[in-house]
């Protein structure tokens, strides 16, 4: 049988993604199905993986019986809610500054990506764990919050500023990839837009709000989704530590799987909300 061009191209598509499908069978579909089954059952025999269906019992346990899980989940969500806007705004500011023609641009770009080189691993965790973070923050705090300023602002605001400062270092460590995304996005905006805006005597400020930001929305969507996924999957996250602890030390695989799926649902919800909120803006840009 001779294949038509149409049909051939259909099979060629499968040829190209065939490695991925093969991989997905073993490394995604099987684990997901197995882990879902696990979360709805009671593991009777650990060596032969014999399971008894128990319905939602494991999930109910997470909400009703476990005193640790829900507070950890809430604090993970809170952390992402605090970090997400900080990381996005920080990456946006730095990305825009680094895309301008400034002196020592090469040096600054190199330095700002340096945390990505080390920040994702054991090393940075250890460096931050050595109290280095606190030491550094103490220095910054003394610079900004001198006793006089503290008296003037009052305790509440000083506390808020301290929390903000404690988060801001982590934010800076975690935003290397986001800066790169935005840097790349800014370069793809056509310079002719800025030129025509300049002829109409627009200021830099106006150009940011009316050209750069709207044109960046597709990249911002990717940046935000990346940030959400990355911060939820962060290994320093206590909830992840708790799940692995239940799994490996308590050998309670079913319960760990159930907790994992609840966590996953929360992440998916976050991503879905962001996606739904930003899609109209993205569509707007691509239509223009």
């Amino acid at each position: 049988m001779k294949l038509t061009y149409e049909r051939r191209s259909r099979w060629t598509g499968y040829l190209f993604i065939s490695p991925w499908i093969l991989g997905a069978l073993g490394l995604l579909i099987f684990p997901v199905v197995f882990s879902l089954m696990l979360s709805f059952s009671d593991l009777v025999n650990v060596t032969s993986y014999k399971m008894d269906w128990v319905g939602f019992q494991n999930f109910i346990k997470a909400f009703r019986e476990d005193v640790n899980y829900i507070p950890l989940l809430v604090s993970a969500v809170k952390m992402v809610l605090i970090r997400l806007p900080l990381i996005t705004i920080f990456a946006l500011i730095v990305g825009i500054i680094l895309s301008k023609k400034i002196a020592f641009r090469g040096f600054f770009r190199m330095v700002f990506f340096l945390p990505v080189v080390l920040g994702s691993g054991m090393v940075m965790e250890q460096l931050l764990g050595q109290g280095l973070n606190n030491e550094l923050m103490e220095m910054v705090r003394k610079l900004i919050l001198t006793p006089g300023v503290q008296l003037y602002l009052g305790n509440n605001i000083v506390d808020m500023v301290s929390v903000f400062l404690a988060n801001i270092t982590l934010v800076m460590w975690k935003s290397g990839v986001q800066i790169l995304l935005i840097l790349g996005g800014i370069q793809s905006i056509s310079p002719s837009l800025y030129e025509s805006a300049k002829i109409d005597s627009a200021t830099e400020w106006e150009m940011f709000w009316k050209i750069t930001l709207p044109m960046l929305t597709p990249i911002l969507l990717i940046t935000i989704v990346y940030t959400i996924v990355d911060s939820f999957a962060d290994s320093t996250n206590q909830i992840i530590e708790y799940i692995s602890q239940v799994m490996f030390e308590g050998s309670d695989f079913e319960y760990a799987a159930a907790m994992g799926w609840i966590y996953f649902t929360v992440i998916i919800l976050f991503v879905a909300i962001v996606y739904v909120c930003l899609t109209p803006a993205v569509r707007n840009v691509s239509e223009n």
Partner: protein
Amino acid sequence: MNEFVLKIKHNKSRIIKISTRITVNVFIYSLLIGLAFVFLYPFLYMIITSLKSPADLNDISVQWILNELRWENYETAMNALQYQERLFNTLLVVLTSVFGHILSCSFIGYGFARYSFRFKGFWFALLILSIIIPTETIIVPLYIFFSRIGLMGTYLTIIIPCFFGFGLRGALFVFIFRQFFLSLPKALEEAAAIDGAGSVRTFFSIALPNARSSALICLVLGVVWHWNDTLEPSMYIENQGMYLLPQMLPNLYSMISSETSVDQLLNDSAVIYNDAVVMAATTLVVLPLIIFYLAVQSKFMISVERSGITG
């Protein structure tokens, strides 16, 4: 008279313009320098601490300027890490994994970008799912899978998934390549097809060479992420002798004696795992990564600028 007023007004607005520009510049540079300091501080701290002698470590007045540079710390750290053999193993694992990633992810990304086929939406949704799903959720079945096919405890558990578009954030790399191929004009490939090249050949001789900037981005991010990853190795590799370099660090950290005793201070030849040695070990572990980054960073930045990460 009127002209004179106009001139003054003109000068005034020019002065305002220049002064705002100066203020903005001062603000931008102080921000950049301050942030650069925050980023560089830990590295300086790490290097300085790694050279401290026990006496300097215990002396609070010594912070940045040391009485002596103790290079022996590096020797102790090298022995504790068994540096040479582990460095070789780590390089082997990281480089093959990243090679697999670039090869498979560009191939798969090309399929998603150029062809339409049945259930494409479903497969693409699965791709996105594999980015979002936390590894911890599916860790147990993965463990079962690898022990069933008999790969448990070998480096292949880390390397093989990379050749199928999986592995550490593999789906993200597929996405990067897909975005790039979507933005690449089809004309060249159509010309190749007319000249009789098959689709696979067209991919390897025309599409892939054009994707050099995306490949470089994957190379840099892949090397960095694989090098720093401790989750996968700690899951699959139990034999201490096969530990990769970053896996050794927690061991060393736990070996630190919390305080250096007077005895150790006096007896210089005793092997002491103090903060300085640990920092030396940390420096040794990240050193190859820093050298790699400095070597490729200018080209890397150009690729990011030229094509963006996601096209």
